[in-house]
Each structure stands twice: as structure tokens, then as C-alpha cells.
């Protein structure tokens, strides 16, 4: 997409920031570094496991010993191509690796092998799920493969920086968005959707705390519809919430400077989450001249169109397609559909709850409602992941079956649900052990109604003289008499008959 078309994208009115001189618009582009979920590194055969002892997963290639040479990992190439296809980008039949030259303690080669002029993937899009079922499509400029650097620790010693090269050489996919995001919320929605796609594809675990997904944000501000302002790059923000906060802070900082008549320096900044501020990075003050050139140790990466096509046809269903399917096939609301499709684990749970152990078709809407209300509420309350849910998908399905076949009422179902959470067994077992089976025997219900009517002749008279509201009173009394187990529909029908 061209710069003009990116510039033409306007923020929603509520996303504009009110400054002293009027409204401002935030312009954001994100560069995401997603670690490829591979066993070994991009150009060497050393391991990638997180949390290993420092410098225990370092090959001589990763530590840039003299004469060491890179050999590329086929799996990493495949995952980058799949990710490109997953975001609807074009996988290029030929791409090349370049050396990006700069000195840093955790960059042993003195250059990073990256892709500059010819990335493996060009173009693509991410559809943002915005509040109230709204959506917005953000262009992806490119995705390229590159090596990660090592990790410098500045706080282990008073005067020294300690360098761990375990991360050095791990495969990263750098995914660059167009500058089309216009609010911190959109940036967060972009990251959530991208992470979801990566996880669906299984190409990256999306774990921001462990650094396997990292985000740099390019932030500038402008008067609505005006020219883009000078941008600052905020480096390595390690949670989606912090990305939003950093952008919010940075935009306000820039507006204050501009409104005071100042100018923005194009610079790299660091987000300090403890203080909620961004600050200029001292180590990045030097003028950059990366002197990119083709890495002569590597050859052009050539991918067969047929191979790319086969990867494409083998892609799993991705979140957007899945939520569309939930809307069209299951009749879910777009909101519910997106919530359930947002995380692969959610939709896996949902689909298991729909089918696991089912002898009859379960109503997708009822299952969805139970999941988005009751299950999510429990998870929130107990601060659990869906994978740790105290009620299994199969049990949720069973519970819905018990409601659908009239064994229990919706009200009783909530009691059963809680009992399952409390570990009392399966819904069916709980219904039996607690004797919660709904009374659908018309004789028993009739008997209960008769005794209620007999005990309240005055109320019956009032009702018959037109006090319709008393119907609820009779229902309540009858329910009480059956300990809540009366089939509500039957009770209603029988009561109506008796009172007319």
C-alpha cells in the first residue's frame, strides 16, 4: 500500500486526542518480532528452549567464531511462508538474505542476517476486531526472516554488562504493518489478532513475557488529515497492555512538545512500564548506517510455486474464517463468534463442547452462551486459562444435553454447573445424586397445582376476576412444592388449564 493511501486513513472521532490547540490524531505502525517455534536456530543446529542456563545453547556459529558459516533451517522458512499465507501476503519465489551491520555486545557477528530488499513475504492484512462488532483492515507491508541477537543483562554487576548468547541466532519473523493504526486500542487489537493467527498456525507461541513475541511501535501525531509527523520508535514493549500505554504516553508527549512550539526528534525510545513513560535510548544515539548488502555466505532462497501452493492448501482454518463460520453455520452473533474464535483454545473448547459425547445435535447458540457467560466468568474469577477449566468441554456439552432433553431446567442447570466446578462429578451424576431430575410427570405436577389452588381459594378468585399477575404467584408456589424441579413449560400449561 502506498504512503498516500496510508495517510488517507482517518481515526474514528472518539480516538482523537484533545490538545490545547485542537484535536490530534495518532499514527501508529507496528513492527512485531515473532520467534519461530522451531527446535533449532535459523542458521545453526543449537537448541532454542527458553530459560536454559546462560550460554548453554550456543553453537560456534551463534557465537561467530572465525570461519563459521550459516546453513538455513528449512522448517523456519516453511513457518515464515505459512505465516505469510496466513496473513494473506504474497510468498516470494525468490528472496535474499542481507547483512545488517552494527556493533553491539549481544550481536557476535557484528551484523545481523536479515532480509532487506527482497523479503520472503510481501503484503498482507490483519483484520481488527473492534468493539460492537466493528472491524478494520490493516495492511501488512512485509514479513521477513532474521536472526535474533543475544541478551544483555545490565543489572547483574555494577560496572559490567553480562551477555548470554542463548537467544543469538534464533529465527524471528519480523512483521511490519503499514502506518494505518490510529489508536492504542487499534494497536492492541492488531497485536491480539496477529498473535491469534500465529497461534492458530502454530508458527509462534505468541508469548510476550518470554519474549517470543515482541513489539516495536512507531508513533507520530498529526492534525486530522494532515501530513504525517516525525515518528519515534518505541522498542521492545513486552505486553499488549504496555503497548497501548506506551503509545498513549508517547502521543501525549509529542502533542505537548508540538503545542509548545517544539519539534519531535526522530529517535528510539524505551518504555519504562514501572513509571509509565517512554525515554530516549542512549545506546541508540549514534547515527545509523547499517550498510546492508547480500550475505555472500548464503544463496538466494528459492521456493517452488507448487510448494507454496501446497502450504497454502494445508493451512488450518484461521480466526477470521472460523468466526465467519460460527456466524453463518451456527447463527452466533458476530461478537460471540469472534470471542470464541479469538483464541484457538477457546474455539477448540467450544467445538468439543458442541460435539464431545453428543448423541443428538447440541444447539450451538446455547453452548456459546454457556461458554461466554458461565465458563468465562468462572475462569476470570479463578484466574485460570481455558486449558485449566474446572469444567471440561464434554461436561458442558452434557449439561446442555440435560437442559435440552428436559432432564433439568435452566435454573437447576446453574446449580449443576456449580457442582461440577466444585468437583462433584459429571452433570449427569450430580443430577442423579442430588435428585435434581426435572419433574415432567403431569400427574405429579397436577397434584402439586391442585393442592396449591385448594390452599389459596381467595387468590384463585382474584385471578379469575382479572388479576392476571397472580399467575406468577401460582407458578412460584408450585415450583416450591416440587423443589424447583417441575418442568416449567408443563407447569405453565397445566396451570393455565386449571385456572380457566
Amino acid at each position, binding site marked *: 500500500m502506498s504512503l498516500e493511501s496510508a495517510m488517507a486513513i482517518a481515526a474514528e472521532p472518539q480516538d482523537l486526542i484533545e490538545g490545547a490547540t485542537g484535536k490530534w490524531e495518532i499514527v501508529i505502525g507496528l513492527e512485531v518480532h515473532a520467534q519461530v517455534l522451531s527446535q533449532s536456530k535459523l542458521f545453526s543446529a543449537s537448541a532454542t528452549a527458553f530459560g536454559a542456563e546462560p550460554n548453554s545453547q550456543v553453537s*560456534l556459529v551463534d*557465537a*561467530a*567464531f*572465525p*570461519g*563459521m*558459516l*550459516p*546453513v*538455513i533451517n528449512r522448517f523456519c522458512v516453511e513457518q515464515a511462508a505459512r505465516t505469510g499465507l496466513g496473513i494473506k501476503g504474497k510468498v516470494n519465489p525468490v528472496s535474499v538474505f542481507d*547483512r545488517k*551491520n552494527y*556493533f553491539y*555486545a549481544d550481536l*557476535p*557477528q*557484528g*551484523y545481523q542476517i536479515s532480509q532487506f530488499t527482497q523479503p520472503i513475504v510481501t503484503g498482507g492484512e490483519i483484520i481488527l476486531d473492534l468493539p460492537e462488532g466493528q472491524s478494520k483492515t490493516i495492511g501488512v507491508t512485509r514479513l521477513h526472516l532474521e536472526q535474533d541477537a543475544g541478551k544483555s543483562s545490565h543489572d547483574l554487576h555494577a560496572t559490567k*554488562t553480562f*551477555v548470554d548468547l542463548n537467544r543469538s541466532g534464533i529465527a524471528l519473523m519480523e512483521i511490519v504493518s503499514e502506518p494505518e493504526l490510529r489508536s492504542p486500542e487499534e494497536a492492541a487489537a492488531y497485536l491480539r489478532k496477529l498473535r491469534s493467527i500465529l497461534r492458530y498456525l502454530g508458527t509462534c507461541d505468541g508469548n510476550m513475557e518470554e519474549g517470543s513475541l515482541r513489539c516495536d511501535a512507531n508513533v507520530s501525531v498529526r492534525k486530522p488529515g494532515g501530513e504525517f509527523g516525525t515518528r519515534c520508535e518505541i522498542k521492545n514493549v513486552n505486553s499488549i497492555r504496555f503497548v497501548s500505554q506506551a503509545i498513549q504516553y508517547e502521543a501525549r508527549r509529542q502533542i505537548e512538545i508540538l503545542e509548545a512550539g517544539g519539534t519531535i526528534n526522530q529517535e528510539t525510545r524505551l518504555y519504562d512500564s514501572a513509571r509509565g513513560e517512554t525515554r530516549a535510548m542512549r545506546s541508540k544515539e549514534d547515527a545509523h*548506517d547499517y*550498510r*546492508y*548488502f547480500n*550475505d*555472500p*555466505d*548464503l*544463496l538466494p532462497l528459492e521456493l517452488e510455486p507448487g510448494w507454496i501452493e501446497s502450504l497454502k492448501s494445508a493451512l488450518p482454518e484461521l480466526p477470521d474464517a472460523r468466526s465467519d463460520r460460527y456466524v453463518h453455520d451456527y447463527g452466533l452473533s458476530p461478537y460471540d463468534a469472534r470471542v470464541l474464535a479469538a483464541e484457538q483454545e477457546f474455539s477448540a473448547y467450544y467445538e468439543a463442547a458442541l460435539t464431545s459425547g453428543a448423541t443428538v445435535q447440541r444447539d450451538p447458540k446455547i453452548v456459546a452462551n454457556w461458554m461466554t457467560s458461565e465458563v468465562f466468568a468462572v475462569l476470570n474469577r479463578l484466574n485460570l486459562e481455558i486449558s485449566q477449566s474446572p469444567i471440561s468441554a464434554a461436561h458442558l456439552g452434557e449439561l446442555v444435553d440435560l437442559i435440552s432433553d428436559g432432564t433439568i431446567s435452566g435454573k437447576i442447570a446453574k446449580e449443576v454447573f456449580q457442582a461440577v466446578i466444585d468437583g462433584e462429578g459429571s452433570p449427569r451424576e450430580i443430577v442423579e445424586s442430588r435428585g435434581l431430575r426435572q419433574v415432567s410427570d403431569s400427574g405429579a405436577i397436577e397434584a402439586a397445582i391442585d393442592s396449591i389452588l385448594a390452599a389459596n381459594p381467595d387468590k384463585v378468585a382474584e385471578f379469575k376476576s382479572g388479576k392476571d399477575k397472580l399467575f406468577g404467584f401460582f407458578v412460584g408456589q408450585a415450583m416450591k412444592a416440587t423443589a424447583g424441579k417441575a418442568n416449567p413449560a408443563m407447569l405453565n400449561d397445566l396451570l393455565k388449564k386449571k385456572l380457566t
Partner: protein
Amino acid sequence: MTKLTELTITAALLGLKTKQFSAAELVADHSAAIIASRSLNAFITETLDSAAERAKISDQKYAAGTAGVLEGIPLGYKDLFCTKGVLTTAASHILDGFKPPYDSTVTARLDAAGSVMMGKLNLDEFAMGSSNETSFYNAVTNPWRRRSDPNTPLVPGGSSGGSASAVTAEMVMGATGTDTGGSIRQPAAFCGLVGFKPSYGRCSRWGVVAFASSLDQAGPMTRSVADAALMFEVMAGFDPLDSTSANLPVPDTRAAVASTDLKGVKIGVPKEYRIDGTNPEIIAMWEEGVRWAKAAGAKILEVTLPHTKYALPTYYVIAPAEASANLARYDGVRYGLRVPAASLDEQYEATRAAGFGAEVKRRILIGTYVLSAGYYDAYYRKAQQVRNLITRDFTEAFTKVDLLLTPTAPSSAFAIGDKTMDAVTMYLNDVFTVPASLAGLPAISIPAKLDSAGLPLGLQLIGRAFDDAMVIRGAAVLEKSAGFTHRPHSIAG
């Protein structure tokens, strides 16, 4: 009686097989020669003790009938090849104390074939030079002297100067070299040796300290074409650890080495190599080479390589550019020299200022400059385009001929200190060798004759990419025609 150190590898292998002498004796004699010729400064590190131990194993292998193809042969390795546990310096201060925990693929293959490493040979620092004078471990001396001026020490050529000197002085039977723009062929010519740069991709670059990755190629330096072919067959071969390694079978060079004629072979004489001002003795030697080829049955054709003139400037953009990145890893953090300073950047600057010599610094700075913003297109990209044209010239010529015959170097060996004042004058030494490097072609230098000063001159044969066998065939035949048996006075005694 012939001393063991005078033998070719081929002759020594026969002697070992037929039990005329033992590997222990062979190695002991070479150790003695190494000690006797220390004044040449050919070695940076001698490994004579481990060599003696290795020789015993070789003798056991001969006894057991499990000898490798180079079993018991004393070799030297240019100190650009990493050797496990043995100091590896690239002749640079910046690799002070560096002991690699690995062997280069090429030297590992030689070791596996039973050869005996006698030590690590001197070179121009990071292979940047044409005279071996840029070494942190000081200049190497050529065993040859001018007849009229026997007291002036001459350079052995470079960058594989220690290799050339050691093989010439019969300290080792063969040596590994590396050739980026002529670093095997030019010193071979200066020392009266055979120096073979195989096609780019034949010998793995894994474990060889990199200078310019798209040009670097390892090869043998020996006292005969047959020896070079023998070493080449061991050194070459696909290596999955080098992405630019050619996945092709190594050619069997026995027939090529045994060739006695060049019937049916078309040899091109590139007219652009007749550079104005070239030493007439070089031209005469070249013309003699052409006559030998013709007499051997080759058809001689004049060919044109129009962009020859631009090969050197192309090389002196591309090689430094690649080197500027390849040498960025020498930063004092993980190995080698460190000059401590208060900040990381100051430490880098101090370490690299102290660790690199003048020529290496020049090339890093030029390389950095031609890649930097605003100059990339004018220099680096332009040079890559011209490289393409130079390669096309060769491709075109090789539609008409099978080999090209040229001089190896524009002069014979010069005196130490003669050309160190001006970098560009030194660069002109590589005028005949650089074009084949840019095109990745196999090329060999063989000793042709002595000039009027009594110094060896070399002839170069260049072949089609991966037609290494044809180059060896041409060299084997011309070697017979030349009948070069001269030895430096100091060695012949």
C-alpha cells in the same frame, strides 16, 4: 642419495608403501628442516611434537594396511585454517591466543587422509596482501635470491607466503593455501611452485577464517602438479556446513595428471593480458608457454576478455566490502585480543585499533565506505555489475576454448620493503590472478622458467567453472614441457 625432504608427495607415498623409509623418519627429517630454516619465518606455530606422535600412528597404519591416501605426509596449514586446540591467528594480533575448539573441514579431511600437520604457516594478515609483509608475525622470506644480489631478502608473495616459502624450502611436502584474488597462485609463481585455486565451491570454507566470502577458496601448494591433484582430491568435496559448497563429485584427476599431450584441447590467449609496460621477460615466458602448448598438440586461439582492465578495481571494492563485515566479529568480546576501556564502544575501538594492522584497517575502512549510505550504488553495486561483465567475458571465451593461458604475475619476486609504501602499487601484483577469482574459475600456476635474475616465473591456466580436471591436465602437460627442476641455491646447497 636424495634427501627425504626433496621428494614429492607422490614419491614419498611410494617410499612409505614400499617401506623404504618410515613416516617417523620422513617427519623427523622435515622437523629438522623446519628448525634449520626458521630464519625464513614461514611458520607462526610449529607442531613438531604432535607431528612426531602422528607419524608413529601413520607407521602403524602402514603396517596394518589401513593407511590413508596421504598417510604420513608432512604438510603445513596456512594459519587461516582453524585447527582444534592449536593457536590460529590469521597472522593478526587481534586473534591473540585464539585456540579454536574445531578443525576446518579442509584440514580435517587432510588429517583424516593421514597427513601430518607440521604447524601453522605465516601469511599476510587476514590474507590481505601480496607479499606476506602485512603479517603481525613479521614478513616471510622467499628461499630464492637474485643471482646477482644474494643478500637482499625477497618476498615469497602473498598472502599464502608462509605456505610457499615452507614448501619451497622443503620444510613440508605440501601446504594449504587460500586464494581470494591470487593468494595461492602469485606466491606459487614467486617461489617456483605449483599453486592450484580450485573452482569456487570445491573446497569448503567452513573453519577457514573469512576474508571475502564470495571469493575465498582453499587449495594446495606443492612441488608438482601430481601432488597438487592428490591434495586437491582430499581437500575438495561437498560440505553441508558451507551453503556455497558445490554438491558435485570430486573429479578423478589421475588421467589428467598422466596426460602427455593436449590434442583436441583449445587454449585461449587473452589479448587484454598483454598490458602495456609488462616486463618483457614475462611476455617472453608467456610466449614460450604458448609454444609448449602448441607443441603438445593444443590449438591456440586469441580470445578477448574486454573487461580485464576493470577486474582489479572491481576486486578492490568487493573484497574490502565483504571483509568489512567478515572482520566485524573481532571485537574483543568472545576471543582474541581485548584492550579494556571504560565503555563498550571505546573498548571496540581500542581493541580493533590495536589488533588490526595498517592494510587490514585500510581495507575495512574502504569496505565500510563503499557500503555506506550514498556510496553503495556508485561503488559496491557498480563493482558487482562489472563483476558480472567480467564473468560474462569468461563465459563467452569458454564457448571457444577449453583453457586460458596467461602469466601468473607481472613480475618475479621483489625485495622485502620494495612495494609497501603504496597500497595500489602492491595491488597491481594481482592483475592476472584477480579476474579468475571474480568469476570463481579454477586456475593454477606452474613454474615455467627462471628470469634473468634467476627467479622463478609462473604460467597460469584458467578453466571453466568446475572443469578443474582440465586445468590439472593442462598444467600436467606444460609442467612436463617446462621441465622446471630448479631449486633455490640455499636449499639445493
